[in-house]
């Protein structure tokens, strides 16, 4: 799956379920600075597992993987390739 498609999916989930309206989210926005906290990170992980059918192992739960939409998309692609 293309990185841009994955980014669009994750972005739609975050904008609909986690962030307030009006918070701008680009592929390279720092998610923590946008307001994503630890609880929201769990919600994003559950979405990745559900939507892309890719369990996220403990060793991939690293801050750098959850920094931006782009890093999340890369994580999904990496996990999809190894599954």
């Amino acid at each position, binding site marked *: 799956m293309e990185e841009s498609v994955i980014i669009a999916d994750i972005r739609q989930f975050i904008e609909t379920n986690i*962030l*307030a*309206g009006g918070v701008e989210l680009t592929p390279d926005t720092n998610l923590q600075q946008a307001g994503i906290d630890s*609880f*929201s990170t769990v919600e994003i992980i559950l979405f990745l597992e559900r939507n892309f059918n890719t369990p996220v192992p*403990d060793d991939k739960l690293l801050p750098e993987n959850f920094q931006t939409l782009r890093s999340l998309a890369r994580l999904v692609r990496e996990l999809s390739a190894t599954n």
Partner: protein
Amino acid sequence: MPALPRKVILSGSDCFHLVLDKHAHKYGTGSNVMRIVFQSQEKIAAQQLSAQLNASPLVQWLCNIRLHSGGLFGRPYWEYTGGNQPIPFYEHQYGQAGELPATLLQRDLPLRQQHFIECDLVHYPDDTTAIVISWNHILLDGRGIGMLIQHLNELHEGQPARSADVLFPPPEKKANWPAYIRNMYRVKSFIEKSSRAPIASVASGYGKEPSQFHTQLVQFSVEETARIQQQATAAGARFGPNLFYLSCCAQAVRARLDEKNIPGPFWIPIPYDGRLRGSFGPVITNTVAFLFYRLERDQLHQLPTTVAALQQQMTDQMRDKMPQRYSMLLSMMRHIPLNLYYFLVNRRGKGAFASFLYSSTGDSFNKTDRFMGIPVEHVTIYPSPTFPPGLTFSFLKHREALNINIAYSPDIVPQADLQLLIARLRQMLLGSGSE
């Protein structure tokens, strides 16, 4: 100035705090009053600060409202009286720098009053000052007070007041009763399973009313806080240090209960902020739901095991949308008369709501360096005394330094026991001989 709403209906979480308020008064611990303390190196003029606070439309609203029950099966609501009572403002001279007078800490903000926020200014002999904002938790949760401080800072900087749309809760969606009722059984079933007896509590075996409550502040340096963060990562905390903090508290309390031969697992409700992220508001109202953690004895021996157990439970509950379901349940319960609501909540646990209480403001105050233009050296939260259980840990990070304020009753946790508990907690957090 934004138009202030005449009527604000209490949220489900607000009404749960009404139940806690009733419970607190039954046990003589007073209302659920929280305090935030800003310690400043400067001498502060009371008149100027008082005038600045009263210029806030939110403060004005908080000082001129009264509670209505809503009648049989109606929802309780706040009515803004339109009055012009200013914020109650008290000044103290106190000899012990950095500490607060007992008269201040013991002052209540009961529901029969028409103001739910107060300010104290404590002057110390070295010309330093503490600004103390006290508020009743029925109106504002921890995130709410953080936004109230932001709002006051914005006013001080000359920015226009934010609109009532973001300061107050938005209009509610129409209730979907069939969904509410289905959800109620699911949440009830989960909570009954999660809190099944026996549950150990610091108050186990203590049946009477505690005669007094105190607070004890535990402070860490910036270097120690960085080390605690490393310990959290080493213990496997994947979603920030919060569950590591909770694990350390649980193990420290468990060690104390072992010494007292009080067996049984722990049950700990942890607040979950239901606001959308990245937004300002609502300031007024509690939007907090809860995650409920159960820790068995064999999960309390090693920190990585405790952290892993908590993370698994958090993920499972969020997968089941338990915080949202719990919020829905609380919204429904608003329609039940308060006495019946209290009976329903109280009958199951026979008054034991939790093994101990824990909350964390996360990074909300980490970068707070001014309060209405006044430079701030330290920020501390004083949690309200709650019995049972009679022991509350409140974590706060300010300028990268962690502090923990512990509200306790010496009747339940005697001073010597508390010092042992704090020593264990420090060891666990800092990773020195914890296991």
